[in-house]
């Protein structure tokens, strides 16, 4: 039982990271219909920024988080104004933009390799100290921080999307750009807001996960694939469903690794994903963004 609880707790913490990445996917997807394949690299960028600011420049955590947000904002603006908007203006098809996100990711990885080298670096946790154990179930303090921050962020984003005028307008932009425009919504600016929000959430996720798995150029891919899976399994529609799907994936990963086979755990996870996609009612797949 303790083992099960331990796995469940770890699965929830892990799944919360996936959910956070899914959140990043969904925010851009809601506003533009674009699936951002640079998500993993943006996560990496957040982690690498945290590494440089915290470990190399010895800044305190508040400044580090601020720095991560600033870098994320810059990256979002570069992508939005340097790549996305020009492509929209030239009438590039969505597929090209999806590939542009892949290329943007390549550039980020290459830049990180050039800048800091290709290895993995340790990053100090926010609250140093021993793991916290309750009744045989233990958790690293950082995992607790990640889980808490992930759920708080998803709550905030949900609040933003449903309770604030900007958030509701942003959803309108994603659902029906004409509707948004004729209602006076500054479409272009809101898309930029979406990019910024998405990249900040993802980069903060990277900064939070770095103390657990380290920071390095090739760290993001595995997490991004599962975050994408969470976003899609959540129906590509709502941020909290993406979060719940992320936790589900985390739990499946943990439990199947332990109870079935660690070697075949990825096969099991992806097969479940595949079946879920194929058997998912068309109604769920077709429903648009609800929040």
């Amino acid at each position: 039982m303790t083992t099960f609880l331990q796995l469940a707790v770890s699965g929830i913490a892990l799944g919360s990271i996936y959910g956070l990445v899914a959140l990043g996917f969904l925010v851009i997807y809601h506003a533009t219909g674009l699936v951002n394949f640079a998500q993993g690299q943006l996560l990496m960028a957040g982690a690498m920024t945290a590494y440089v600011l915290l470990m190399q420049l010895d800044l305190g955590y508040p400044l580090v988080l601020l720095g991560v947000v600033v870098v994320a904002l810059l990256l979002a603006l570069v992508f939005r104004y340097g790549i996305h908007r020009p492509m929209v203006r030239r009438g590039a098809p969505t597929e090209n933009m999806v590939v542009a996100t892949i290329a943007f990711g390549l550039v980020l990885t290459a830049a990180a390799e050039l800048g800091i080298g290709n290895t993995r670096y340790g990053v100090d946790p926010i609250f140093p100290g021993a793991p916290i154990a309750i009744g045989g179930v233990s958790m690293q303090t950082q995992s607790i921080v990640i889980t808490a921050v992930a759920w708080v962020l998803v709550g905030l984003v949900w609040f933003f999307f449903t309770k604030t005028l900007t958030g509701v307008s942003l959803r309108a932009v994603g659902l029906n750009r004409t509707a948004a425009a004729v209602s006076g919504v500054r479409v272009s600016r809101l898309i930029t807001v979406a990019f910024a929000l998405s990249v900040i959430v993802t980069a903060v996720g990277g900064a939070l996960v770095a103390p657990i798995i380290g920071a390095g150029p090739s760290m993001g891919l595995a997490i991004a694939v599962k975050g994408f899976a969470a976003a899609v399994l959540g129906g590509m529609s709502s941020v909290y469903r993406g979060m719940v799907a992320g936790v589900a994936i985390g739990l499946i990963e943990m439990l199947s690794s332990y109870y079935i086979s660690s070697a075949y755990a990825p096969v099991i996870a992806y097969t479940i994903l595949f079946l879920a996609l194929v058997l998912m009612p068309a109604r769920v797949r077709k429903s648009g963004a609800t929040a």
Partner: protein
Amino acid sequence: MNVPRPRRAALAALALGSSIALVGCATAGSSEAQSGGDTSSEGPVKIGYIGALSGGSASLGVPIQHGIELAIDQLNEAGDLGRELELVAVDDEADATKSAAAAQRMVTEDGVVAVLGGPNSGTVLANNPIITGAGVVQLITVAQGDNLIDPETPGADLTYQVTENNSYDVGAIVQLFEDGAYDAICAVSDTTEYGQGGIQTIRTVFEERGLEIATAVSHEVNATDLTPQVLSLRDAGCDAVYLFDYGQDAALFMKTVNQVDWEVPVIGGRGLNQAAFLSIAGEAGDGIIFPSVIDPEKASAQEFIEAYDAKFGEDDDPAHTFSALGYDSVMLLAAGLEASGFEGGEALASALEDVTLEDAASGKEGSTLTYTYGDHRAPSDDFLTFWTIEGGEYQLYSRDVQSTRP
């Protein structure tokens, strides 16, 4: 009014032409070269290095290259060889296709006299037939696959391994397990060629020694959470763990072991020499034991480390294992070239079969790197040392563990 019609034809032709031009341009850059490498007596002698310089394996490939560069600089500065050495390094991104293409370019375009192979066994398997097929010698610097030196495969006479192979490592590690008299030795590895190769080898060696792996678990490389793996081993009653992972995953494993408050001796593979392990694990890595090729009491090793850190910084390769092997690869090759009169191919191959490196940067004091006829694995007996982590620092664990050639 008739629009000239062959527009679309022009487009198709242009498209085709440009693709041919692509081939043409690349051809234009090619130089005259013959198999067996460059034997001209003028100018520097070219040595190739094919390794991962970007991507996940670059943390191995880059220190190797740095070791190679240091050796070449030292040799050229001393000038004892009589000829300058020049490095041609290509990044294969640990990709077999790219590695094979790089090999073909080196042997036919660049005219290298020999190729130094990189850290990944898979890429060596793909590029070796091309290198040796062109009559060029390959020295495999760091890749440890047991199957890399196989007298059965074509080109075996031109292939040399500088480092000890997996069986060699595991043979020494097994002694540590035997000394501990454990009841249930368990294994964890990633699913890359490195991890799976390590597990395969340890199964074989254990069988030979009458030991067995009680439970084995695996995980994807660059894992995010290893709780199930750690709990599986703990709940299976393992009292010793063999950890065959790259640095970052090994660090995560150790942190998780600490987190669930499990006290268990962990003995690792050579991947723990990666800078990432110590950087991420910190003090969570304390107590882990792993093999290395560095002996701090050996003068030549000290000199190498001093020179390396002066050139690339202390953090570039803190464990110095991979850079030392890169360095020694050049030293072995240089000895062979000197003997063959800078002739490549068969001449170099047979010259190498008579080479011994007494004061290599790698290896325990008293060990040598030696090639003999029909034996292309360099390390002699007692090549390895064992290290541990204490208070988040590298510490020599033991110089007494016997290691023997398999």
